[in-house]
């Protein structure tokens, strides 16, 4: 589609994944994502979207084909190197996965802390990302004191805090109402404009129409469509 010199961030080529059962969750999936791209992955439940995320984070290895993420060949990634891959990623989930006993600030700081960052550096960076997600005034709130949308913003701040080049969100709006969903995608879109590559899984066709980005459509484990939408929901070319 485009021919330029941007780095390839995600490369799936002929990827199949069969778990233990022998039945393929996805098969023959090929696509690439370049630095600075924004990509939606959509499809019915069980289509294999989360399986694609697990392949990207090195949680599972492809049964067939080849997966390369940020230059890491997932097929050949040794268990000891998986953490290295993950440090280049920021992952966001539908259920937020915040630690309930920690405040918003502590939740975000935790991601830096476990990688050994110093307190001063942590304070500076956490304050910056909390500002970015618009929660500067909720730093000291516990997850139970935050709305779903706010919790997801904290999760996004945590995904961003170690400055990864690729943000992956698995149905980040699944638990949110339409307005909150819109705001979350808008935030991810803003983060994309600041330079990060962003991949978002969603069920929500309304969001696809409103944001008009590149969409990969999965159906029963196969990639059946990969195109850029025009505002209003029509396909570009």
């Amino acid at each position, binding site marked *: 589609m485009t021919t330029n010199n941007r780095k390839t961030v995600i490369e799936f080529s002929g990827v199949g994944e069969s778990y233990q059962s022998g039945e393929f969750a996805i098969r023959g999936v090929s696509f690439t994502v370049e630095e600075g791209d924004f990509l939606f992955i959509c499809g019915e439940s069980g289509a294999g979207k989360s399986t694609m995320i697990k392949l990207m*984070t*090195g*949680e599972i290895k492809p049964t067939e084909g080849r997966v390369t993420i940020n230059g890491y060949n997932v097929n050949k990634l040794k*268990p*000891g190197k*998986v*953490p*290295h*891959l*993950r*440090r280049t*990623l920021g*992952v966001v989930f539908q259920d937020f*996965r915040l*630690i309930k006993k920690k405040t918003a600030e502590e939740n975000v700081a*935790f*991601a830096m*802390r*476990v*990688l*050994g*960052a*110093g*307190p001063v550096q942590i304070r500076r960076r956490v304050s910056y990302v909390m500002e970015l997600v618009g929660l500067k005034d909720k730093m000291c709130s516990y997850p139970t004191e935050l709305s779903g949308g706010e919790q997801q913003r904290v999760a996004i701040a*945590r995904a961003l805090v*170690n400055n990864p080049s690729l943000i992956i969100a698995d149905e980040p709006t699944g638990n949110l109402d339409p307005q909150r969903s819109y705001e979350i995608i808008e935030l991810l879109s803003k983060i994309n404009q600041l330079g990060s590559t962003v991949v978002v899984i969603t069920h929500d066709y309304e969001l696809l129409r409103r944001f008009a980005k590149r969409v990969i459509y999965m159906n029963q484990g196969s990639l059946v469509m990969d195109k850029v939408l025009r505002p209003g929901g029509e396909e570009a070319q």
Partner: protein
Amino acid sequence: MSRMNRFLYSLADGLKGILRNLMMSLMSFSMLIGSLLVVGSLSLLVVNIDAIIQDLGDQNEIMVYVHEEYDDSEFNQISQAIMEAEHVVGFTFVSRETALEEMKNDLEEYASILEGMEQDNPLRDGFRIQVDDPANVEAVVTAMEGVDGIGNVEARTDVVESFLKTRNAVNLISIGLMVLLAGISTFIIMNTIKMSAYTRREEIAIMRMVGATKGTIRLSFVTEAMIICLCGSIVSFFAIMFLYQELIEKAFSSTGLLQAVPFQEVWGGVLLIFVGASLVIGVLGSLLSINKYLKV
């Protein structure tokens, strides 16, 4: 820098983990102290029995007496047999005159009884034999009894033997208990850390997600176990020091006969064993229990 941060963070997390899991932590802590005290007391008992056996050092001497009448060649044969016997580290000839002198010195109060014995010395010539270890006295005695020309063999093996028997029994018991208690302590530490890992399973999942290495994740749990174990070993050390000085040393000296090995002579070993054993237990227990939470 980052290494230092990680260490300090794991220290803080370890302390937090202990507080969050206070009941289990206290249980591990007391179990460890109990085990160390039992094993420590038994070891100190062994040390003291050994010291007593050492004090009875001349007990690894044997006196052998030759027949009243003997010639030079018989004498040479006997010396040869002693020299060649196993476990013999030295021997000296003791003439009947010397033996009588020694006896007089030993029994000063009864000197009068021994008066006039020079004329009719009832003692015989003999050899004083040094054996390498009290445990081998018995064997040497048997060997000497078989030598031609030797009439009588004397050794106070009974005393030494009973001490040795006691020591070996205590040793056996303490080794058995050590294994048992180390097993129980490790098991309890394992459960404590398992519990802690379970309460923190979400944290662990997030750590893995953001790319913390298994080593980093392990470190915080190993640190938690080590804090418990180090504290336990230090408390045990001071407890056993107090008990030993107040009870054992005083009990020994009240007999007027025996002196307990002073604590100053053994404290280094005790501390080393306590700290070493508890660290092994802590590291082992935590590593064994955390693995299941570390799957990629």
